[in-house]
């Protein structure tokens, strides 16, 4: 989102300097040229939506005047009757069709579609592309983000682990990481899962906690990641929790779902579908909560930054810039809190669900 912020700031600086150019540009049709400044509500909306989606290349900055993208391409890996590997630079940021062997691929709203040589994409009534979608295992921006987060975790925590060989008291960065690990263990896993069984799930809970937190924080950096705000990522995270809960569940858990003890038989029959539904809604709430919170956060911050441009005509450049800066800063600080909070809630609820599945019922 900060990419957008930087782009917009530079764009505003240019706007202030060359108002004449702006007038000339805004008069043109907005969708026509890539190189135009983003200054209408529709363009801003599209830009935010574009940011929230995954991308096949890394763009740090797009020059508003020349339309040049500064960044680097990422490898595209497609499965379309065979493995197709090529660099995303072939798409020229969506401007051209990539020819791989006999097949042609084009990018539309962050997704790769199979097209003809001209790159024709047909749309249905919901404005969704109807072209065939090849299975896309590309190293996209989100995958890079995940790999980066994983790498940071491996480096940081293996350093912490190595530090214990030198002495029981960690030093340096490890001193910051250790309380976090203890926090997850003592305040999330232990009270929810129970003293006897928590140890088995620590690997998953700790990994997920730091994975989500780091990715949430990476989303606030100017690198422009939106990994935890991607539905596929949160679905995957929630499914991990779901399967861990189901596979570690004991007899009592299944009994409570299919044949609730302690209630009359008609109630047991009524409760069964409700409990089965509850089994599925738990991970669903996890995935929607994380996705919605992070997406909304990114959307709000970007929209507040965009106020600078939208309100420029009403309040003048200085007032609108100042207002959007203050509001965006305020929301960004809250987003830092949300980044931790969502990682905490996801881990907390995961351990709660695991705890419900493995707890011993001694009152029946």
């Amino acid at each position: 989102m900060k990419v957008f912020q930087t782009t917009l700031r530079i764009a505003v600086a240019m706007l202030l300097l060359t108002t004449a150019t702006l007038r000339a540009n805004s008069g043109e049709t907005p969708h026509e040229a890539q190189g135009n400044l983003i200054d209408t509500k529709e363009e801003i909306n599209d830009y935010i939506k574009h940011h929230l989606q995954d991308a096949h290349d890394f763009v740090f900055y797009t020059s508003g005047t020349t339309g040049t993208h500064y960044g680097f391409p990422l490898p595209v890996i497609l499965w379309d009757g065979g493995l197709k590997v090529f660099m995303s630079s072939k798409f020229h940021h969506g401007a051209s069709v990539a020819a791989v062997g006999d097949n042609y691929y084009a990018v539309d709203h962050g997704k790769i579609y199979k097209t003809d040589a001209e790159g024709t994409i047909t749309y249905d009534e919901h404005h969704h592309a109807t072209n065939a979608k090849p299975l896309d295992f590309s190293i996209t921006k989100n995958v890079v983000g995940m790999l980066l987060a994983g790498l940071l975790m491996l480096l940081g925590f293996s350093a912490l682990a190595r530090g214990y060989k030198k002495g029981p008291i960690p030093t340096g960065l490890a001193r910051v990481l250790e309380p976090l690990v203890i926090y997850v263990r003592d305040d999330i896993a232990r009270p929810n899962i129970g003293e006897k069984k928590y140890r088995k799930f620590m690997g998953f809970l700790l990994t997920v906690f730091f994975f989500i937190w780091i990715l949430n924080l990476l989303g606030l950096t100017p690198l422009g990641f939106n990994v935890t705000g991607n539905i596929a990522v949160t679905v995957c995270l929630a499914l991990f929790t779901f399967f861990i809960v189901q596979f570690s569940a004991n007899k009592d858990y299944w009994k409570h779902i299919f044949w609730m003890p302690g209630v009359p038989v008609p109630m047991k029959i009524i409760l069964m579908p409700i409990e089965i539904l509850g089994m599925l809604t738990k991970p669903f709430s996890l995935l929607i909560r994380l996705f919605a919170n992070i997406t909304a956060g990114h959307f709000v911050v970007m929209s507040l930054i965009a106020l600078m441009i939208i309100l420029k005509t009403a309040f003048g450049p200085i007032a609108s810039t100042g207002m959007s800066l203050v509001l965006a800063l305020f929301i960004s600080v809250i987003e830092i809190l949300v980044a931790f909070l969502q990682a905490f809630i996801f881990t907390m609820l995961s351990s709660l669900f695991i705890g419900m599945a493995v707890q011993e019922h001694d009152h029946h």
Partner: protein
Amino acid sequence: MDQLLNDFSPGLFFMQAIILFILIVLMRKFAWKPILESLDSREEGIKSALDAAEEAKKELQNLQSDNERILNEARAQRDAILKDARELKENMIAEATTEAKTASDKIVAQAKSTIEGEKKAALAELKNSVADLSVEIAEKVVRQELSSNKKQLELVESMLADVAVN
């Protein structure tokens, strides 16, 4: 919802699943396991150190009470020994006294009996001597008295008078 489903990328889901799985495996092996083990061992160490301190404190208290007990015992023992010694001394004195008394009594009795014997012997000797002496004297007296006829007659007469009286 429709938009969400359209945005869902199976490829990204697949990549995420693989990355997350590998990450969990790697983190468990290289980070979480050693970290949690170190934390456990450290906590265990702290706990055992605290326990040891508590134990040492208790031991010290035990030692102190032990010392007190030993001291009291020693004191009691000393008192007992002193008491015994005093009793022994008194007994010894008493015994010695009685022994001395009996010995002296014996000596006195012996002396007494010896003296008695001597006295008797002396008396007997004296008696013999006195008898001899008196016989000698009587002899002499008789000789002197009866040296004249007259006196002899007088004696016979007195003796006859006595007999006549009787």
